[in-house]
């Protein structure tokens, strides 16, 4: 057997976490602790790039598959990647080290445990994106909640407990139904192996209920309107690194789940429920954009804008067209980069002024010019300016949606107008204008590590805006095959 590259990706962060667990957290070895975590995640990142390099773009079959018996005759530990999942793995391994770099003075207590939580989280996230067995998927999917719950609950702000519970309550509710659905799938088909399930197919009469059960879990995690209200609270209370992980990666699990499971396993139900998804997506795009317009808290504003952006994602996925799904994946990658960067940007000023309120700031462009430039780049990417990755995703999604339903596309496009309004208004109020608050004069511009992390995020944002081919080529074949299978099974119903 070849080198188990996927298992290594999954396990490496945990091994790093184990190291940290046995290191005693003292104030003097804070730097060492951070380096250990950083080193682990960087190795993981390069490993995943190597994986991308080895990845064969011409096939939609799962690659690097590892299959081990876990519980005889019941559950197999089976992992593998295809074009749909590989980009998410790279996104995860790319964001996590940046997250660790960004952990500086903001987390003063229990740094050791904080880093362990992040590393364990990385393990789970990668696990989600490469598991090829429903039970394994479920375990990773749900386990991912725990570190996040702890990150918010322990290192969060003043209302952290409320937020953590709200987060947990919402996500758990959906997850329980998904577990029931997975068990029923096992009863119906006798297997939980995704590859086998793709081949067998699931009887149409069970699909609707199963789809709804999966939907209830994914909808909460996306989050879709109206089960989105946990997200702003969670973001506001979470420490910067937590917000970054939450926005950049955690939210993507649901989008991935929709493509992999809802479309892959329940095609006829997906067809039936497409109008529901369209309606919820459009409502999410317009309503949450309007809400974002009125926010006074920077983090809440970005959180609401995330809901709107994820609305585009769900819309694109259920157009079930090449451009739509590709747009959705690009939108997710782009949102991963941009929202991570925006939360880091909020973190930067929060570290200096200890306020997230927009009206604390204003007129700081000459005081922190480097920050102003980078923040502008991400603002523009968030409003989907051509030349940034945000545009490519949004435009492809809308293009596909238009083919399917004029009204939906027209309404969703309205969100693009409001998007420009709230992002530019936010930027204006924070960066431009007269300097009124004299405290702000003491602010220091980005230090080296902040500049580094934000630049790391800005480069792919712009690069994929001008040249998204590397992304599109990776996912193209897998998606076209997925659509073909989908159309085939819908037609043969």
């Amino acid at each position, binding site marked *: 057997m070849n080198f188990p590259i996927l298992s290594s990706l999954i396990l490496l962060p945990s091994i790093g976490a184990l190291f940290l667990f046995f290191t005693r957290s003292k104030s003097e070895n804070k730097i060492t602790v951070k380096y250990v975590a950083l080193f682990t995640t960087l190795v993981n990142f390069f490993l995943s790039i190597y994986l991308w390099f080895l990845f064969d773009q011409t096939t939609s079959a799962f690659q690097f598959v590892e299959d081990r018996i876990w519980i005889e005759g019941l559950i197999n530990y089976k992992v593998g990647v295809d074009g749909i999942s590989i980009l998410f793995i790279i996104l995860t391994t790319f964001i996590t080290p940046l997250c660790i770099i960004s952990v500086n003075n903001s987390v003063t207590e229990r740094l050791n445990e904080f880093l362990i939580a992040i590393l364990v989280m990385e393990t789970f996230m990668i696990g989600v994106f490469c598991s090829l067995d429903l039970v394994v998927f479920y375990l990773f999917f749900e386990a991912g909640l725990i570190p996040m719950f702890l990150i918010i609950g322990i290192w969060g702000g003043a209302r952290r407990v409320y937020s953590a519970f709200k987060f947990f309550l919402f996500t758990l509710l959906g997850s329980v139904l998904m577990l029931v659905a997975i068990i029923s799938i096992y009863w119906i088909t006798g297997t939980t192996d995704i590859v086998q399930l793709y081949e067998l197919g699931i009887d149409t009469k069970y699909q609707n209920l199963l789809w709804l059960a999966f939907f209830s879990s994914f909808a909460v995690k996306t989050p879709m309107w109206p089960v989105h209200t946990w997200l702003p609270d969670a973001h506001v209370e979470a420490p910067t690194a937590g917000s970054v992980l939450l926005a950049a990666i955690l939210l993507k699990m649901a989008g991935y789940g929709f493509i992999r499971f809802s479309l892959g396993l329940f095609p006829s139900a997906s067809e039936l429920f497409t109008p529901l998804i369209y309606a919820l997506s459009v409502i999410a795009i317009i309503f949450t954009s309007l809400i974002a317009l009125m926010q006074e808290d920077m983090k809440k504003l970005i959180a609401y804008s995330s809901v709107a952006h994820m609305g585009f994602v769900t819309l694109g996925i259920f157009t079930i067209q090449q451009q739509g799904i590709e747009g959705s994946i690009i939108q997710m990658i782009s949102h991963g980069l941009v929202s991570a960067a925006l939360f880091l940007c909020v973190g930067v000023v929060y570290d200096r002024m200890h306020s997230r309120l927009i009206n604390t700031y204003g007129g700081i462009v000459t005081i922190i010019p480097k920050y102003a430039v980078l923040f502008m780049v991400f603002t523009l990417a968030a409003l989907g300016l051509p030349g940034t990755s945000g545009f490519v995703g949004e435009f492809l999604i809308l293009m596909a949606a238009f083919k399917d339903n004029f009204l939906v596309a027209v309404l969703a496009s309205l969100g693009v*107008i409001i998007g420009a309004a709230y992002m530019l208004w936010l930027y204006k109020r924070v960066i431009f204008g007269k300097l009124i608050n004299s405290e702000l004069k003491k602010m220091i511009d980005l230090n080296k590590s902040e500049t580094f992390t934000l630049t790391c995020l800005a480069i792919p944002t712009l690069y994929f805006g001008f040249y998204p081919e590397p992304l599109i080529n990776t996912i193209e074949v897998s998606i076209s095959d997925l659509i073909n299978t989908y159309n085939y099974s819908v037609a043969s119903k």
Partner: protein
Amino acid sequence: MEISILALPLIASIISGFFGKFIGDRNSEIVTSLLVSISAVLSAIVFYEVIFNQYEENIKIATWINSGSLEVNWSMKIDALSSVMLVVVTFISALVHIYSIGYMSHDPHKSRFMAYLSLFTFAMLMLVTADNFIQLFFGWEGVGLCSYFLIGFWFKKESANKAAIKAFVVNRVGDFGFALGIFLIFYLFGTVNYTEVFDQISTVVDEKLNFLGIQIYAIDLICILLFIGAMGKSAQIFLHTWLPDAMEGPTPVSALIHAATMVTAGVFLVVRCSPIYEYSELALNIVTIIGMSTAFFAASVALVQTDIKKIIAYSTCSQLGYMFFAAGVGAYNVAMFHLFTHAFFKALLFLGSGSVIHAFKDEQNINNMGGVCRKLPYTYALMIIGTLALTGFPLLSGFYSKDAIIEFAYLSGTTTGYYAAGIGIFTALLTSIYSWRLIFKTFHGQYNNKEIKIEETHESPLIMLIPLIILSIGAIFAGFIFKDLFLGYKGINNFWNESIFFLEPLSTDHPPLWFLILTPTLVTISIPLAYYLFVKNKNFATQLVNINKPLYEFLFNKWYFDEIYDILFVKSSKRFGLFLWKFFDIKVIDGFGPDGISELIKKFSIKANKFQSGYIYQYAFVMLLGFSAFLTFLIVK
């Protein structure tokens, strides 16, 4: 060579933007001006090749988006149409770059300013040389972005920031229509490439669509949606509100972006899409009506404004209206001709007004000026040339293009055409009056400024005057020299080739003589009229205002568009957003969702708590109760 036309401004922008600090302000200014000037020279060469050798080329630079059946390339399309735009954009841009060196000499952020100007030039060139709709859209939003940066350049001014956001968002409303138009094109033709789309047009002529409950021809819908985009960018009535506010930016910006280049992108779009528009009578009528309404509306507002830049901004709006109705009656080449000449004299007027503002140390109200024609002789003379050209005084450039528009509207022989011609003539009169009002109030009569003494006003430095002189040469001769090229000589026109499409050839008739003399006569008469009204007998003008107070207020407040939009869109969406947040999210969703459930559990557990009170007699009582219930159950069974 062709690609370096695009690349040089981009390089200039990067050098000045990122390395401006290291190379210094002066070097940034030199580098950007030089590179853009080289780009202008190269464009001139291309223009020459196109004129004399019918040069056409479609250069693919790189792949951009390639998803499923959608294929979009970064490319550069050179034909007659784009070569005209190349020349206009790079020339005006180069002159504005040079002018800015003088105009911005006291500004602390020179290199940033130059970087924006160059970046704008790059985006505008991407727009005009696109060979597909999505690259066009890239340039379209790119110029919008640069316009946003430049309007808000003086970031400390609250009004400048507001104007910048307004410009971007109003343009986004237009872009919303534009994007939908692109989606529809892709939906119908499966491609977004110009030539491929234009080749297939005739196949969908009879196709009807049900769009949001309206039965409409597909072609009509495409044209209308694209035109919404054009209305936003070119500040046509309903989406014009951003342009006057955009005057918050530095004056060179107004000259380059809000007069000569960016705002003409809408006209360019309609002309570029002439193969589609030709098949849509409905859309062409809409274009004509919107164009002539804007021409009239903006001119009427310009009559009473007091801010020198706003008057010129409304004048731009109005002239763009002329271009649109020229396109609307099918005279695309005439629209392009007016675009071409307008770029010279309007840039001249803006830069000239910049020179005046500079002389008055940032005073923009024409009521606080006057009597400086001897103090600013060069600026005065140049502004006169610009005004003569704008009003269409015989033999200057505006005369050839504007009168051609009115003639072709008349010759089109349709009802809308006649209306357009009539309104065109009337608006020409208004244009002349407000333009001369500006000149007389600024340069003649008494000196009205209380802040600075007349001795302190000074003529601008040479570096600002040279671009003005070059522009004035264009304003005088561009019409005469290029009229045969743009309009054809004796009804024969080889220049445009395939780049403009006419379903039926333009009429080669001549309108009656009285019609031909009418406009120039009105324009000429209005000069002494304006002199009488605004210099000789000012009381008469004031009386006129007093008699027609409501009308004056209506015009002075720009037909109340801003106020109405504020109530209809801005305030209501804010209110709705607040409602969705405070009521829907917090009260309804959270109230019934997590908060409600936890509240319920809490209540329930408080009740349950009461059972565990610790008093023996209570427990005994409950036990007794249970036991008796159980007993009853057994007995009944």
